[in-house]
């Protein structure tokens, strides 16, 4: 069977192809597709290569928001967002190997929304938004409204992910992951914490992945936010212990299938991440 390979050079052309061939596989870096068994590659007979669509590489900064094109590689995003959205930059730096980070893209990560990948907890913690474009216009979705189920997103058959938007310079952020050899494995657990210090009273957003999907830990957020407002910039040790217990309980309530060793490891990673952001007192 023949294979069609389309190389649009403009967003308009790409959207037209998307409308004409809704079954075509959209790719840019193709790092995920190409690391799947080769049978995955043979499932598709049409490919739309988005890597030449110039509009997908744009970026601009507004007063409170930074927008980056969906075709930004992890490596480029890690550099570009290092000072303004550090949790996402750190997550980008944790993806795969340097070779994968040179080729894989933010748009690809969001499109796939793999439940145990590095980016989802960071995107949730910082409150990222996804910009989707079709021939009739663009819409912006909060990342929490984007992933319906693991690997199932709100992308419509006529849409393309064109950019990601992040609140910028909000305050201290950190991302940590735990897993087998980082270069070749998704994290077993990962935690991202972002303190929004632009609010009258700083708020702590916490998101984790424990291999079954990324989600926010609202109870832990409330605890950390209240503790932060009472304790100032030095997190006492007992706060860490209490926070550890809350994270572990939350994970147990989230899914009975998470083994104890994973829960306790995840709680330890969360404490380490909280200590890092909390200690970054210059921003508070």
């Amino acid at each position, binding site marked *: 069977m023949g294979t069609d390979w389309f*190389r649009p050079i403009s967003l308009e052309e790409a959207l037209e192809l998307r409308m004409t061939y809704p079954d075509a596989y959209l790719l840019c870096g193709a790092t995920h597709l190409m690391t799947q068994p080769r049978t995955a590659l043979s499932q598709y007979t049409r490919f739309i290569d988005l890597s030449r669509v110039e509009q997908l590489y744009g970026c601009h900064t507004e007063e409170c928001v930074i927008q980056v094109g969906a075709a930004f590689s992890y490596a480029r995003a890690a550099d570009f967002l290092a000072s303004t959205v550090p949790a996402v930059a750190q997550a980008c730096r944790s993806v795969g*190997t*340097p*070779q*994968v980070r040179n080729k894989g893209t933010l748009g690809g990560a969001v499109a796939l929304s793999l439940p145990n990948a590095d980016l989802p907890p960071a995107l949730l913690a910082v409150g990222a938004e996804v910009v989707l474009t079709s021939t009739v216009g663009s819409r912006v979705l909060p990342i929490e409204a984007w992933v319906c189920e693991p690997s199932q997103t709100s992308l419509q058959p006529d849409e393309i992910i064109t950019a990601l938007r992040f609140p910028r310079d909000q305050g201290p952020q950190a991302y940590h992951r735990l897993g087998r050899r980082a270069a070749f494995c998704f994290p077993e657990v990962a935690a991202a914490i972002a303190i929004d210090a632009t609010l009258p009273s700083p708020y702590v957003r916490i998101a984790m992945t424990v291999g079954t999907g990324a989600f926010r830990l609202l109870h832990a957020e409330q605890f950390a936010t209240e503790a932060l407002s009472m304790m100032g910039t030095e997190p006492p040790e007992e706060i860490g212990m209490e926070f550890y217990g809350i994270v572990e309980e939350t994970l147990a309530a989230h899914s009975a299938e998470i083994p104890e060793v994973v829960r306790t490891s995840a709680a330890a990673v969360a404490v380490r991440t909280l200590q890092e952001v909390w200690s970054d007192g210059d921003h508070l």
Partner: protein
Amino acid sequence: MGVTVHTRVNGQPIEREIEARQLLVYFLRDELGLTGTHVGCDTSQCGACTVWLDGRAVKSCTVLAAQVDEHEVTTVEGLAETVPEAQRIEGLHPVQAGFWEKHGLQCGFCTPGMMMTAAELLANSERLSQQEIREALEGNICRCTGYQDIVDAVAFAAEKMGVSVERDVTASI
């Protein structure tokens, strides 16, 4: 339907009609005869197939040849030409010379990929720690050397290229 690819490989313009699912590594080896790029795992694990795409290291077993259309590919055969002649050591890229001088290989199977990854690191760095060298090589697996000689080879090349390397005796891969 085939796909026409116009690319530059090691500075040479190439035009070929290929099958859309052909991997870059097989395009380089089978179509162009550039067998310095090795096929190790074929699953993006080992890094033996690392080449440069527009100056950035990628694993050519996980890039489709169709993706390099209108882009520039550099393989280990063209590595020496990526540095000025004055930096070459007996015609070799300093990284190649480093692997020679510091015994950075035993069987040599991983070596082309190691060198392409290391050379990209050095091309984009002014200062490095040994830990950063090790982290940059995290996508490349060597079954023979235990890595220390490879790190030494990269540090040797760094010195020749004017990239300072801080020694870190506690670094481990």
